[in-house]
């Protein structure tokens, strides 16, 4: 439980997965900074972690990311770990009626992930290395029906992660993608709507459950962020109990409306 001692970790995206990873990183000894477009969400998470600080960012404002990373460096020390958790909720509609706004929002999340990486880069290079762990989705390898913008963004994160691995490896900065299957509020909401489908899906998972955001997803993120991840880069790691080899990707169209 000391794998990230004296390291500063920035959590960008304070949803249930971001929260689980943040709590796990804190338990592993990291100093935590939380960035989110929602100041409330960032503060709510930071408030639950002793010594953590919250920094709101504006998704389309690169300067706000650079300012936040500089403020984190000043307050907690330069970030050597970035948990990049940018994806929004999918907009469900068949491709023929998906809007330009929906694409802009989803692809804007990929851009925000890239901007967060760029903001982290000088600090990681200066520190002699860094770890970027981006939370992606299985829609970035097996597409889901009726969520074209989200599928496109999820695939985009694969390309972004692998390019970061190639471009920044020489500075011992690793970049990996983590694909979780976890007990999030979204999964619980889906279970309320379609309990049989979700039970069937979860029952097909080899480990027979959805992951715990702290123990399962946070544990895998700590693997990539700690010494054990030293030679892992450009990888797509599934923290999903084996769901990716066992069953079809969850189909969001079945839970809409």
């Amino acid at each position: 439980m000391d794998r990230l001692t004296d390291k500063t970790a920035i959590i960008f995206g304070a949803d249930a997965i971001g929260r689980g990873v943040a709590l796990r990183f804190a338990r592993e000894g990291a100093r935590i900074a939380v960035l989110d477009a929602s100041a409330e969400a960032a503060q709510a998470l930071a408030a639950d972690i002793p010594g953590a600080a919250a920094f709101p960012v504006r998704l389309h404002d690169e300067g706000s990311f650079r300012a936040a990373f500089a403020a984190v460096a000043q307050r907690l020390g330069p970030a050597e770990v970035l948990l990049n958790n940018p994806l929004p909720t999918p907009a469900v509609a068949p491709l023929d009626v998906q809007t330009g706004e929906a694409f802009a929002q989803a692809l804007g999340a990929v851009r925000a992930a890239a901007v967060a990486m760029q903001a982290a880069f000088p600090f990681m290079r200066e520190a002699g290395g860094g770890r970027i762990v981006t939370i992606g989705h299985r829609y970035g390898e097996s597409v889901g029906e009726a969520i074209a913008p989200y599928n496109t963004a999820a695939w985009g994160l694969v390309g972004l992660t692998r390019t970061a691995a190639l471009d920044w490896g020489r500075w011992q900065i690793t970049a990996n993608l983590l694909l979780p299957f976890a007990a999030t509020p979204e999964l619980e909401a889906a279970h309320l709507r379609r309990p049989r489908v979700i039970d069937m899906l979860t029952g097909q998972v080899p480990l027979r459950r959805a992951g715990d955001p702290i123990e399962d997803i946070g544990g895998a993120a700590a693997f990539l962020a700690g010494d054990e991840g030293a030679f892992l880069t450009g990888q797509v790691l599934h923290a999903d109990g084996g769901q990716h080899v066992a069953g079809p990707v969850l189909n969001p169209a079945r839970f809409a409306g």
Partner: protein
Amino acid sequence: MTVGRLEGRVAIVTGSTQGLGEGIAVRLAKAGARVVLNGRSAEKGERVLARIQDLGGEAVFVVADVAIKSEAQRLIAQAVEAFGRVDVLVNNAQAQSPYAHTTDPENDGYFDLALKSGLYGSLWTSQAAFPHMRAGGGGRVVNFASVNGVFGARYAAAYNAAKEAIQGLTRTLANEWGAYGITVNTVLPSGLSPSYEAFFKDDPQRAEAAAKAIPLRRHGRAEEDIGSAVLGLVSDSGRFITGQALFIDGGQSLTGLPQLHDLGYAPH
């Protein structure tokens, strides 16, 4: 270094008398595991055993050829005899076949050797370990594939076929054994094995050029890089990871793989 993460656990590492297997065994021992070393050479095994004992680790060495079913089964039985349980099984052993064009009539023998030591060896040890892992409430199996298999490196059909077959075995075991809390993953490591080092020994420029082709700009170290990643999979942090193929290669395979065999390099 993180100490004690495998305290109380028993880890078997096949083919651990040299190279990557040795590095993995040492890394797991340093994390507190009681380690069962294995190989075909008693002499080499004693050296690694002494190394782990000198570090204050607990280990035994079992001479066994996992390419022979009864030997693979005996390895597991002796591990249980020594330490009472099996928590982690690392199927690293793989016999090497000579380079051969796929039309070479000697291929029957090469395939037999590669499949028996790699594919069947992994199957037989896993089968024998299964009841012990189930009884212990779960377990971790790590199998070994290769980028050479993924990309179909020239003149290594037997090896490549064995390695890709192991990936199929891994995903099936992950699917079947998850219900018992057993995770099964494949790693595809690229690191400083004896054959790798021999290739670069007389040509530092070549070693440097090869390192430059790796995004992290360095060759993987058996213990610190490959062993540590295996530790990540078999320790608590890997508890929700199963059916995964994990390249431990510093990003080397991201851009595709050069045909190293044509340069005289034996990566396997």
